[in-house]
């Protein structure tokens, strides 16, 4: 596909062009600059970006599927970026989140993209951010980023979101206290999925108790049964009222600004990393010797 026909395709919201554009940016192709500068910044600014995180098996993909169904009834166009980890050994990955969303596979207004972490530090944040922008520019008014909430790269990703949902389910280990501190802190809305299962009420009470500590208005817990579509309407109502609150209070703008600065930093590092690595290798630095001192020397000389 030539770059001109790709840009034409993006304007026409052609699925092939959208898929291709995301790959080219993800793979660091030269055409990424042209693609990203062609985007409609107004659409990007207007879209709502939802982060959905939580432990494996909590029902993130199924909940995402439920949210898609509901938003499609309202005639909205939706983008989904589903992130799964790459194997640190082989570099390969199995991207399986789509399975739960296949009922929407032939719906052209549901744009799904699976993405592997590829062991990138900030790089994933940069490429996922670019994918969000491509989808928004192609008319997706809601974009969901779905990721397992463990590990630093996943936590970084969630910073791209305007509003973050933490999805939990009973029976996955109820030791909320011991849960990674950051997860509860970044979540705007806590969701207890599989609410028809034993232990859901206790989990919800535990969560409320944990978040109440030291806070005047504790985070409310939403209950859902994603497989049956229960609780989704109420959840979406909460999301949209929180979004309006954030727009009024300036919180949304503050978050976008934070995410933007982080993305610019990530891109700087992405662009610099291969150049720096080449420079380091070119110098054939002698061993032994302190790596930090060598690093400063290289940077000072540039």
């Amino acid at each position: 596909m030539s770059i001109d026909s790709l840009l034409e395709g993006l304007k026409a919201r052609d699925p092939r062009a959208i898929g291709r554009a995301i790959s080219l940016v993800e793979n660091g192709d030269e055409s990424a600059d042209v693609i990203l500068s062609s985007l409609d910044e107004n659409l990007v600014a207007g879209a709502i970006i939802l982060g959905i995180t939580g432990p494996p098996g909590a029902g993130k993909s199924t909940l995402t599927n439920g949210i898609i169904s509901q938003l499609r009834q309202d005639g909205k166009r939706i983008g989904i970026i589903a992130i799964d980890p790459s194997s640190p050994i082989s570099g390969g990955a199995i991207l399986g989140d789509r399975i739960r969303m296949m009922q929407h596979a032939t719906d052209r207004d549901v744009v799904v993209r699976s993405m592997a972490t590829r062991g990138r530090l900030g790089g994933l944040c940069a490429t996922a951010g670019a994918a969000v922008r491509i989808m928004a520019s192609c008319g997706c008014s809601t974009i969901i980023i779905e990721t397992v909430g463990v590990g630093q790269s996943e936590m970084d990703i969630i910073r791209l979101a305007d509003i973050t949902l933490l999805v939990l389910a009973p029976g996955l280990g109820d030791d909320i206290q011991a849960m990674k501190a950051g997860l509860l802190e970044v979540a705007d809305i806590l969701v207890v999925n599989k609410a028809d299962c034993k232990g859901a009420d206790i989990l919800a009470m535990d969560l409320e108790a944990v978040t109440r500590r030291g806070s005047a208005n504790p985070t409310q817990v939403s209950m859902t049964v994603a497989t049956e579509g229960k609780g989704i309407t109420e959840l979406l109502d909460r999301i949209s009222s929180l979004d309006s609150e954030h727009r009024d209070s300036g919180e949304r703008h503050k978050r976008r600004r934070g995410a933007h600065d982080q993305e610019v930093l990530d891109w700087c590092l992405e662009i610099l990393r291969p150049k720096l690595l080449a420079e380091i290798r070119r110098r054939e630095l002698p061993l032994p010797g302190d790596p930090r001192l060598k690093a400063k020397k290289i940077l000072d000389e540039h």
Partner: protein
Amino acid sequence: MTEKTKKNRVLVGKPGLDGHDRGAKFIAHALRDAGFEVVYTGIRRSPEEIAAAAIQEDVDAVGLSSLSGAHMRLFPAVVEALSKAGAPDIPVLGGGVIPDEDIAALKKAGIVAIFTPGTPVDKIIGAFQDACAKKSAA
């Protein structure tokens, strides 16, 4: 410019009503261990669903598995669905319980490689690598 980080991306799925996914999952894992990014779409997919997913995910190749005997209808149907959706360049590979006498007809219908029971996994990985390389070069 940023470092080029092209990875082989493939889709593995099962068209039709056959629910026996052990073979498909085995191949998905083998490809992952060989460094592929594998979009796994699971069982009971229509050819149109597989084609739409392959396009959205911008994969370099599609791998199909069938153990029910419906390969003669379903494999070519996926090739056709890809073509109809504007992606005739995405190669389709297939495996499963496929009689030798069907192989020529399937290849004629556009399936680039066929794997029968007992095919060494390295050969399958090699065929996917070839298909991805050809697609990227095109």
